């Protein structure tokens, strides 16, 4: 798969974000994505490993040889954010923060909140 074919969807972004903090296995990624999105993004086994497959193919993540928790089940596979993945995540977050900045400057962001006070 060509790397430019990978769609940066919300689940993909959250997965990259959780792996930017530390290497994690599937279950841990799923729980962390759910927690950091405030329950807005929920992944099932199929959608999670589908996204992981695409990220592996794009070279944004790789399987980690080191297991952070030595007591953990040996069959668990940990995933590690690659340099390329970190660069892509940085670029994507910068792009999003610019959008948010424009929205804030144009007083679009938080409109509902202000209306709520009226």
């Amino acid at each position, binding site marked *: *798969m060509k790397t430019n074919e990978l769609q940066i969807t919300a689940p993909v972004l959250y997965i990259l974000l959780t792996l930017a903090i530390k290497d994690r296995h*599937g*279950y841990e990624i*799923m729980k962390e994505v759910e927690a950091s999105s405030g329950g807005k993004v*929920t*992944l*099932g*086994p*199929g*959608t*999670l*490993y*589908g996204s*992981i*497959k*695409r990220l592996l193919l794009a070279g944004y993540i790789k399987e980690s040889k080191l297991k952070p928790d030595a007591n953990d*089940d040996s*069959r*668990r*596979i940990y995933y590690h954010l690659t340099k390329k993945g970190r660069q892509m995540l940085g670029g994507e977050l910068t792009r999003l923060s610019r959008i948010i900045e424009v929205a804030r400057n144009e007083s679009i962001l938080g409109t509902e909140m202000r209306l709520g006070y009226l």
Partner: protein
Amino acid sequence: MSANKIYNNLIELYPSKYLRHFRSSQLQLFTDLYLEELDRGGTFWLARFWRRILKDLFISLPSEYHDELRRDGPQKILKNQFGVDGFVLAALILLIPFFLMTGFDLIFRAILHNAAVTNALYSSGYWTGPVIFTIAMGLPALAALLGLYSISRREEATKIRLLSARGIKSNLGGLAVVAVFFGILVLLVGHDYFPCVGHSLLNQGLGNFFNILRDCRSA
């Protein structure tokens, strides 16, 4: 059947290439989630859990097949995953005459209340009945043999149980052809419920066979 076994069979629906890499991880994740739901207890949580799992399956399956189609193309997927090879395709071609004939008869039966095609063919000569009957039954039988051969030559047939979800999936082409053959047999044997096909093929075909035999003996 335990939840793990059910899920193990369900994930057979994913493309084989995907499963080669992620089967154990996905099963492990399912087990983790299932144990978590069991800890919560109650039928409500389990029902909610299975709804989530099935929803996940319906979302991720098309996406995985779309990926495989884009990468490998439909022919490779049909061959590698469902065992649809040249033998199965040849078997399907052999089945076409039977279905054309019965198909036309069904249409004529509906319009004219008469199995027009086979009636016309059978009544056209002394030997035509048995010949058509032999072709009509011989071609599906040959197709079934090709289907069985296709199954026997696949590596998966020896490595995995044929009547498991995995076995059925990877030999779907051959098994479908064999199932069609048995379907035809059931259809013909139970012709009281399907008079058009049954009467025209069995009665006329076999009837003529016996007539010819009787004539030969008396001659």
